[in-house]
Structure formats: C-alpha cells, structure tokens
C-alpha cells in the first residue's frame, strides 16, 4: 500500500493537452475519484499513473518512489477497466492466478490466495467457468479479484461499473467500497457518474479539459464548489444574485416552500416525482428559474400553481 503523488503532470497530443499541469496527492489507503465529462482526460491520467503512457512533462510518485519513467510491469498496480479485459481463453481461476504466476508464486500458496480473492468478491464456486459464461457483474468481480490478489500498491479503476445496469451498479458500489476498506488499498477511481463519485470517495477530483477544477471531500465539493463548472457538474445548481453583485449557488434541497407573502413568488413549471423526492422546476418573477427538491409526503404542487419559495443566505455559496 502506498500513496500517489502527481506533480505538474501534462500529456500533450500535438498541441492539444489531454492532461494539463495536474497536481494530486492521494494518501495511503485513501479512496479518491476522478470525475469529469467525456473527453476531460480521466483515462489519460489513469494510463499515465499505470505506466501505459508517458507524460510529456511532470513527475509521478508511488509510495515516494519516482515512477515517471518506470514501465507498467514495475509499478505493482491493480488495474480494472470498464470492458473487464479478462483473458478470454482462461477460466476464472486461471485469470486470478495469472499475476501470481508472473510473480513465481505457484502451487498450494497461489491456489489459496486466488480462492481467497474470489471469496472476497463472492465468486467462490465459479472457478472453472470461462469469462463468456459469466454475467457482466460477475466478470467485473473476476477483474477485481485479479487486480487485488497480488496485493498491489495501488488500485486503479476506469469506470469499472459503467457497463452495468443501475441496480447492479449500486450493489457493486457498496461491495467495492467494502472491499477497498477491507484491503485498505489506496484507490483511484475514474467515473463520469457524479452520484458514484459522491457516494464512494473520501475525496473527489473534478477534471475538465485536462485541468483540475477542484479536489475536495464530496460534501465540500457539492456545497462549496470552486467554480461554476463544478457547481453545474455536481448535481443541480441554482445560480442566484448576491447583494454584492456576485453570483451564488444554492442546491435544490436548500430551497424551501414558504407561506404566501413570506418568500419570493413563483409559478410551478414542472413537478417531477422521483420516489422519495419531488423535484420542482419553478419560474420566479423576473424570468429567473429555480429548481427545488422536497421530500414527497403524499401531496404535491401541480404545474401552473402559484407558490412562494425562499432559502437561507447561509446556504448560498459564492462562485465566480
């Protein structure tokens, strides 16, 4: 187990910078998520850390060791891709034994380690199957077992749950988090799913156009976004004017309905029922629109209805 440190890491393709002066420090055992839209450079960053690619400039440290010019083989990293990337011609057990074989661990010792890893991802009993005989979720569990069986220094996951349906994804998120806690392995996860980022990570790093936008704990990034991009990318942002002329962001669940005459008058444009919550798209007087999310308690306002809303000034976070 080790920490990861990136110092001014840049990767250029021609004049285009896929990663631009990225700094990041991940402490030992921490779970950090790289979050950003498609093409923001997430995979690029991960492949630089994994050693599948060399940075144009900057340095990469794993466990205090400068690995900038080390090969992928020398880095002792567990890697998981969205496409599973299992060895199609090997059984589940052979897939998990592969990194042990490379490390000259064989016989009963290797067998025990591999079976333990498979038990950890709840796949015991499927050792003899081939990847093509497994469901997507099971294949991804094999990939996880293969990535941790040799006790890697760090674990890198590139959208590991991206190909799974929603329910399975949520299930595996919980398992992934538990696995990471059990092993205590330093983990870097890439995703463009903000819910996944917020629910799994100790900290998140928001990336856009190859540049770091913010590195913070999920709650902090959500409530105190560093800029407009982060505010809009993490959930729904209501931008409101502040008395000092600046802009501020209010989250929908901070918007409250008030008795008539106490808040700002508004008209309900759309009411979207989400199960536990109802999300209202409201038009304030003066052409401004606001989204409010309130718990669903049996009744809801209908579109067209006149309402009043307000929010605490403490819930408004100034952004540039």
């Amino acid at each position, binding site marked *: 187990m080790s920490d990861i440190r990136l110092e001014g890491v840049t990767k250029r393709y021609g004049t285009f910078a896929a990663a631009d002066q990225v700094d990041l420090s991940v402490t030992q055992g921490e779970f950090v998520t790289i979050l950003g839209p498609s093409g923001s450079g997430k995979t690029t960053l991960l492949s630089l850390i*994994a050693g599948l690619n060399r940075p144009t400039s900057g340095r990469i440290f794993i466990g205090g060791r400068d690995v900038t010019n080390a090969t992928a*083989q020398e880095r002792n990293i567990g890697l998981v891709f969205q*496409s599973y990337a299992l*060895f199609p011609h090997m059984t589940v057990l052979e897939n998990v034994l592969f990194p042990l074989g*490379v490390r000259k661990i064989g016989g009963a010792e290797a067998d025990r380690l591999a079976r333990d890893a498979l038990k950890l991802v709840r796949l015991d009993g499927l050792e003899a199957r081939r990847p093509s005989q497994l469901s997507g979720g099971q294949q991804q569990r094999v990939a996880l077992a293969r*990535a941790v069986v*040799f006790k890697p220094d760090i674990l890198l996951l590139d959208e590991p749950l991206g190909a799974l349906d929603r329910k399975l994804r949520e299930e595996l998120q919980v398992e992934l988090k538990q696995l990471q806690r059990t092993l205590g392995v330093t983990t870097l996860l890439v995703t463009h799913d903000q819910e996944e980022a917020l629910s799994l990570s100790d900290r998140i790093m928001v990336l856009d156009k190859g540049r770091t936008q913010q590195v913070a704990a999920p709650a902090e990034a959500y409530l105190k976004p560093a800029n407009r991009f982060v505010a809009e990318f993490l959930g729904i942002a209501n931008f409101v004017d502040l008395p000092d002329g600046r802009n501020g962001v209010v989250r929908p669940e901070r918007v409250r309905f008030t008795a008539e005459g106490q808040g700002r008058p508004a008209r309900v444009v759309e009411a979207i029922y989400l199960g536990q919550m109802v999300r209202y798209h409201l038009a304030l007087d003066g052409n401004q629109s606001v989204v409010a999310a309130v718990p669903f308690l049996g009744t809801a306002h209908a579109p067209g209805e006149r309402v009043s809303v307000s929010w605490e000034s403490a819930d408004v976070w100034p952004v540039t």
Partner: protein
Amino acid sequence: MSREAIGGSAWTRRGLAAMGIFGLVFLTVPLVIVIPMSFSSARALTFPPPSLSLRWYETFFGDPRWMEAMWTSTFVAAISSVAALILGGLAAYGLRRGTFKGRDWAEGNFMAPLIVPTIIVAIALYLALAKVGLLGSLLGLVVAHTLLNVPLVMMVLGVAIREFDQRIEQVAWSLGASWGYTMRKVVLPNLAPSVFAAWIFAFIGSFDEVIVTSFIAGKYETVPKKMFNELVLEVNPTITAVATLLIAFTVLALAAVAFVLGRAGKLKETVV
C-alpha cells in the same frame, strides 16, 4: 445488405443474379472439366474421357523431375510461409498497436506487393536479386515468396489484432507480465485460429506462385512453373493430374481454415 441497397427494380436484381450465376459457372467449369480428364485413359487431352484410369497419376509420381519440382515447391512454401507469418505478424502488430509517425507510409510499403502489378514486382525482384547474387538460388526464391506473402499475412492478422481489445494486453502488463510473456500466454492463444489461417494462405500463396518464380527461379522448377512450361512445350495429360491434386490440396486447406475460424466464431469477421 438490404434490397434497397442493391437497387430498386426487380429487373436489376434479376440481372445481378444472372451475372452472379454466370460468373460462378465460368469459374467452376474448368475445374469440372479438368478433374475427370485427369482420370482419363486417353493419350491426348480429350473430353469427356473415353475410359477411366490412374495412368497420369502414375506418370506424375513416377517422374523424378515432377517429384523434384514438388519437393522444391514444398520446401520454398514451408520456409517462406513461416518467414512471412513471423514478419507479417510482427508488422501487423506494430502497425495496429503503434502510434509512431509515418505509420501509414510503412503500411503502404508493406502492402505494396499486393497492389503493384505482379509483373513489376517480378522485374524488381529480378534486378534486386541479381544485384545481391541470389538470382536463380533457392534462398532468392524463399526471399521473394516471403515478400509476396507478407501482405496476405498482414491483412488476416491485422483484422484479428484490431479486434482483440488492447486493454487485455495492458492489464497483463500491469499485472507484471513482460511483453513477450503477454504475447505467448495472452495474445497468441486468442489469435491462434487467425494465425493458422494466415499461415495456410501464405503457404498456398507460395505454392501457387508462377509469375515471379518464372523470372527468378533459374534452374529450379516449382510445380506451377513446370506445369506452365509443360503446357508450352506439349499438351500432356499429366498436368491435369497435377491440377487435380492442387485443387484437392487447396480445398482441404481452405476447409481446415474455415473449420478453425468457424469454431472460433470468427468466420464472418475475416474476409476469406
């Protein structure tokens, strides 16, 4: 392909079908004629054969010059197909996986023997082999056949490599496996059917080659070169027996390729 894509009218479709059938007949009639003729008892090439016999096969197998040509062809095909497989395989891998400058140029260079008219390749090889003193040598023949078959190998293996997810290799590296180990334990086992197909194509390609061989082989006779020469000298039914043997060999080899690729579920993706 949808019907609209071929052409709207029924007449167009019927015309195309007729052309297709004509083409098929045109290609198969020579085979249909040559095979019974090889079993003929007649001294001259006559169709249909008056009665059946194996005399032309006996002549073929009993003639030391035919056997010598057979041995030369087999030897050259065996060595050059393996050489083409290794060189073409490495080139295809480098071109599919690499991101270096001038990649398209390099690919064009490798594929050139397939596109440039064979007669021009033959003249070029004649001049080049003469320059290095390999004209009319067995080694020169092997070199030429290797060169001619590299593009075939590259085409077959290029498709297979492109379809093999590069991330599988990357994961193997990250798990600590060297490039060579990954090649042997991960890539080759998965590409084995295509490697077999490429090798068979290269072998047949070499065994069938006549134009370049006629230019550069000198005193060496290969089977197709000898067939051609025999035809020019006198019409001898022995060549119908040789032709039948070549057809049988090619059909069996291609059937083996189809079987192996089909079992790997790759039949539809590789253009045979």
